[in-house]
């Protein structure tokens, strides 16, 4: 089987390219570094026996972060390279092209975003470029699919270049200068509204007010979409389901199976939050409490990503993130983590040093609540008023800042400065946004729902055999003495390791005061990541750093819980 590798600079549209070639669905965004791992697929369009790999974006063949290392490894095993270049930025893209050509691998060059080059007044003479480089060059527009027919026809012509020989840095740039002079013409264009907006949103004086406005609008959208979905879609659906579940409950009669599947009836009725059965709470929590917010969040996130706003936000937050031992790019994992910590931790691969990646991953796991956690906070404290909800988020924000400051001092290593390309603003395409949201929701359903189900199952079994109670007894002194919570809350906090969102149902029947609930929910979000996050941290950080992060988490939970107890409950 022939290995075809897609190589190119960050943010040139390789992932869209990949999904065009393979028919596969991959996440794409308008900022550099969306692909941190590679995806594999089979070339469709009548070319059998070609495996195609989408490599992370890289500027050169001397890697400066993990994602770029992955790209280099992939190149070394390639039989053929499709080099995707941004036609609006030929000069810079050619650097990588020359480096690949010097390795004598068969290459075909795709000048992507051909339409945009036209818009900004760039014209490139393709025949001339082919002659200069000695390889086939095609013009493509990955978003619309233009040029792909030609690409497929000419893929067989790809061969090692005869005209490009190995050279050093200096010679390479001189060569690029000559090539660009020969093939490219630029007609000057005037500043547009887009340029003006771009600059206003990245300058400090105008950028910060814009950022605050954008954030508020985003959160408002998420809550409006989420609440509407619950009120008008999911709750009515569950109202239809209740009679079915009730008749199942009657048919089962009391006993082990009833406890497992339906759970405890509250006042003779199913309470979807508190019953804890596999077919009651086990499906209500993921579908009616978490899923609506997941849909809402990922829709808004997709709009954000495709517009190109995130790198501007990274620039604005750079100064403050340096205090936490990272640079501004750290905001992107934080943002993704608000949906799911697993994707957030994967995105830390774009940070250059081990120190940065460790701090980012640890901070995410401790203090950035994912949608499931958010739904939990709203579910528990929402009925008591927005003030209590705000108290949790304010605490988490403080924990983020405090942990960042501490970890920056504690962890040895470098924190290099930011170096981030700012993509032009693009209007998000509704079709792409929809597709991306659906993909992420499908991912959530596939990855998270089985875990959630398994969580309910394991907990119900452990409960029945008395293990949870025993463990609860062991930890009770800490929970009661240090955090000021009832002994029964211990179980809920332990269950939180498997699924935080389930702990909701276990905390509610304990008749705690709102302030106690604030402490319990804050602790639930801080002290331990869910199983999924735990395993991804293990993979990304290794066992040693994982243990370090866990120890820090435990210390933070004790500190924060104790402090909150003193402040909110008194002695």
């Amino acid at each position: 089987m022939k290995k075809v590798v897609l190589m190119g600079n960050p943010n040139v549209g390789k992932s869209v390219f990949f999904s065009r070639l393979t028919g596969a669905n991959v996440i794409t965004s308008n900022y550099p570094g969306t692909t941190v791992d590679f995806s594999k697929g089979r070339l469709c369009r009548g070319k059998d026996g070609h495996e195609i790999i989408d490599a992370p974006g890289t500027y050169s063949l001397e890697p400066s972060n993990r994602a770029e290392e992955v790209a280099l490894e992939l190149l070394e095993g390639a039989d053929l390279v499709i080099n995707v270049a941004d036609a609006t930025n030929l000069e810079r893209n050619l650097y990588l092209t020359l480096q690949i050509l010097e390795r004598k691998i068969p290459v075909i060059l795709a000048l992507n975003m051909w339409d945009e080059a036209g818009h900004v007044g760039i014209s490139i003479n393709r025949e001339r470029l082919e002659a200069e480089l000695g390889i086939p060059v095609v013009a493509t527009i990955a978003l619309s699919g233009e040029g792909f027919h030609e690409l497929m026809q000419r893929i067989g012509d790809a061969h090692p270049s005869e005209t490009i020989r190995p050279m050093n840095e200096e010679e390479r740039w001189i060569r690029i200068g000559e090539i660009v002079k020969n093939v490219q013409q630029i007609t000057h264009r005037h500043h547009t509204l887009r340029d003006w907006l771009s600059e206003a949103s990245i300058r400090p004086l105008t950028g910060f007010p814009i950022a605050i406005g954008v954030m508020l609008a985003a959160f408002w959208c998420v809550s409006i979409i989420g609440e509407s979905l619950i009120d008008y879609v999911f709750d009515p659906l569950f109202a239809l389901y209740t009679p079915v579940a009730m008749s199942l409950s009657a048919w089962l009669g009391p006993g082990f199976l009833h406890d497992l599947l339906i759970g405890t009836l509250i006042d003779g009725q199913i309470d979807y939050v508190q019953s804890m059965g596999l077919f009651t709470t086990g499906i209500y929590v993921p579908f009616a409490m978490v899923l609506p917010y997941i849909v809402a969040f990922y829709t808004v996130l997709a709009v954000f990503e495709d517009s190109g706003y995130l790198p501007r936000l990274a620039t604005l937050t750079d100064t403050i993130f340096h205090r936490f031992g990272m640079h501004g790019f750290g905001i992107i994992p934080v943002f993704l983590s608000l949906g799911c910590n697993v994707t957030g931790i994967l995105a830390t691969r774009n940070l250059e040093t081990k120190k940065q990646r460790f701090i980012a991953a640890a901070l995410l796991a401790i203090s950035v609540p994912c949608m499931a956690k958010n739904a939990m906070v709203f579910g528990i404290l929402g009925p008591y008023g927005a003030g209590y909800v705000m108290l949790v988020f304010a605490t988490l924000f403080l924990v983020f800042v405090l942990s960042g400051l501490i970890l920056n001092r504690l962890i040895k290593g470098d924190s290099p400065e930011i170096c981030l390309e700012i993509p032009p603003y693009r209007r998000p395409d509704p079709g792409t946004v929809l597709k991306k949201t659906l993909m992420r929701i499908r991912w959530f359903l596939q990855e998270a729902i089985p875990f959630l189900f398994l969580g309910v199952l394991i907990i119900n079994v452990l409960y029945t055999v008395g293990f949870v109670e025993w463990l609860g007894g062991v930890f009770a002194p800490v929970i009661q003495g240090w955090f000021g919570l009832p002994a029964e809350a211990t179980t809920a906090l332990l269950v939180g390791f498997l699924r935080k969102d389930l702990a909701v149902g276990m905390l509610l029947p304990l008749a705690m005061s709102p302030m106690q609930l604030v402490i319990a929910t804050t602790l639930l979000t801080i002290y331990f990541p869910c199983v999924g996050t735990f395993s991804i941290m293990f993979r990304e950080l290794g066992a040693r750093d994982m243990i370090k992060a866990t120890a820090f988490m435990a210390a933070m939970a004790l500190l924060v819980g104790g402090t909150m107890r003193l402040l909110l409950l008194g002695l």
Partner: protein
Amino acid sequence: MIQPVSHLETGQSAVICRLEGGFHFRKKMWAMGIHEKKIIRLVAKHPFHGPVVIEVDGREITLGRRMAGHIIVGDPE
């Protein structure tokens, strides 16, 4: 006047004269299209020694202040 790009006024353009700093840094800048004789414009400068945003070839790039200090520019001819 010869000065680091970070000393320009916001909105001001200049020509890159040379890149200082280590081999890796210069290589990275070259790979991003930032090198001698290019026209560079300072788009934004963030306070408290924060990053600067520069524009080269119609592309904006955010750079840390120290990195920007290594890009030495002069008046355009």
